């Protein structure tokens, strides 16, 4: 065992990319070299990398839907992941949104939320 081992920081987390849920072991060495173990596919390594440097999550929520005969809420999601530490701010912005029918899957209901370069889009079509 070299002394350098102690200089590394080791992290363990669960991959959330797919239902398999691999346990990822990530070591970050002194020179910021990142090594990922435990991933069963390349997406896992990619996920581990962002998780260590800039953890991000997609956010889903609902907004008020007006004018529909049957539905009161419209489900929405961010079209790109947002920084993990800004999830609550994003949800608060989403909460202010009101949408009228008709609305289609993919329609933007909130553009460039908090200047993050991320749109909030409808995940359901409600015609009436």
């Amino acid at each position, binding site marked *: 065992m070299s002394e350098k081992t102690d200089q590394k920081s080791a992290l363990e987390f669960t991959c959330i990319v797919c*239902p398999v849920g691999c346990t990822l072991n990530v070591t970050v060495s002194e020179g910021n070299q990142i090594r990922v173990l435990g991933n069963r596919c390349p997406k896992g390594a990619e996920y581990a990398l962002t998780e260590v440097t800039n953890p991000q999550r997609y956010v889903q929520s609902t907004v008020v839907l007006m004018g529909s005969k*049957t539905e009161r809420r419209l*489900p929405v999601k961010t079209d790109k992941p947002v920084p993990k530490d800004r*999830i609550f701010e994003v949800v608060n912005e989403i909460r202010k949104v009101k949408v009228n029918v008709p609305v289609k899957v993919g329609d933007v209901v909130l553009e460039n939320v908090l200047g993050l370069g991320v749109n909030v889009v409808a995940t359901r079509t409600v015609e009436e």
Partner: protein
Amino acid sequence: MFVAVVGGGPAGMAAAVSAKRAGADRVVIIERAERLGGVLPQCIHSGFGVNYYGEDLTGPEFAERLRADVKASSVEVWLNAMVIEARPDKTLIISTPHGISFVKPDAVIFAVGARERPRGAIAIPGARPAGVYTAGTAQYMINIQGFEVGKEVFVLGSGDIGLITARRMALEGAKVHGVAELMPFPGGLARNVQQCLKDFNIPLLLSHTVTEVLGSERVEAVKVAQVENGKTVPGTEKVFPVDTLVLSVGLLPEAELIRQMGLPILPYTGSAAVDQFFQTDLPGVYVVGNGVGIWDLVDNVAMSASVAGSHAVKYEGRSSDLAEVLPGVGVRVVIPQRLSLGESDVPRIWFRVACPIPVGVALLTRGEEVIARKGFAGLKPAEMAEFPLKEEQYRAIRPGDKLHLRVQQP
């Protein structure tokens, strides 16, 4: 060929579309709610469709895709229509907005889904105040009805719906004090423990349960204690001052209509036995999706229901050559429980283990003889595992065989 599909959730829609594509003259979906989609419209989170559509979708988006397929394939959809009686000769009596209807299809596919186990099923002592919800009900109230369900929340049970509801309530501004799980391992998928609990600093208390509900009008607190060998450990009791208790303590297939058909109900799935085409012991009667056993992924629900849909059209009746598959040591659930023999497609067996197994071998046995074996890593009770048989293994099975699927650790 007339196929009736009872239930318009993901299983029902996938089965109907596949029956129509296989050449059925008429396919009708009978759905008791005012919309298609089953539970998907309220499952606004992502994680659906990675296997079935090759894309990460939310529940409503997954439902939308299937609904588009239903529309495009000219399947008839009856909404607000509920089957109130199902007879062994496949007659269905349906309550519709226009009155009572009788239909007698050539094949019936039950895609009836599951119900949540309520508080009564686990008998939590204490008061009976308002503020105790099953996770799916809480999810419906938040995501479909737009209500705030609770401000201070405790969750009992770590099934996926419980974990996802915990996150949803945290996002809506509630404080989720914790999730208690009776077993020493989580009930839901590992990724949901990560993204629903760890991400939001919600504590997961393994080997813990709620021992008492306190409050008169509304829940005021819950008592939680550690559990060892099925008993609460004295002195470990903690009081959580919450206004809401969310229960995620399991699902049971909604088997009333299946029972009415005269089909015996298996104790370990809560539904009828089926073969690899999801056909029951009554020819032309199928059960798919969560109605036949609880799946953890909608992708598998849709895939398996498609198998039933096309089979209902292509095959009339069933082959008489059957073998039986039973859960053996270490295995809680197997689907299917029958194997129709001599089919051109080699079947797969789905199974769920009783406790986590880091490395193990699944064995399909006939008495002492091993018919098939397959190595597995990371088997978890939360996940349905897939055991595809090989051609020669399948052909080695004989009519009348009683096979056991068990799991061994090295």
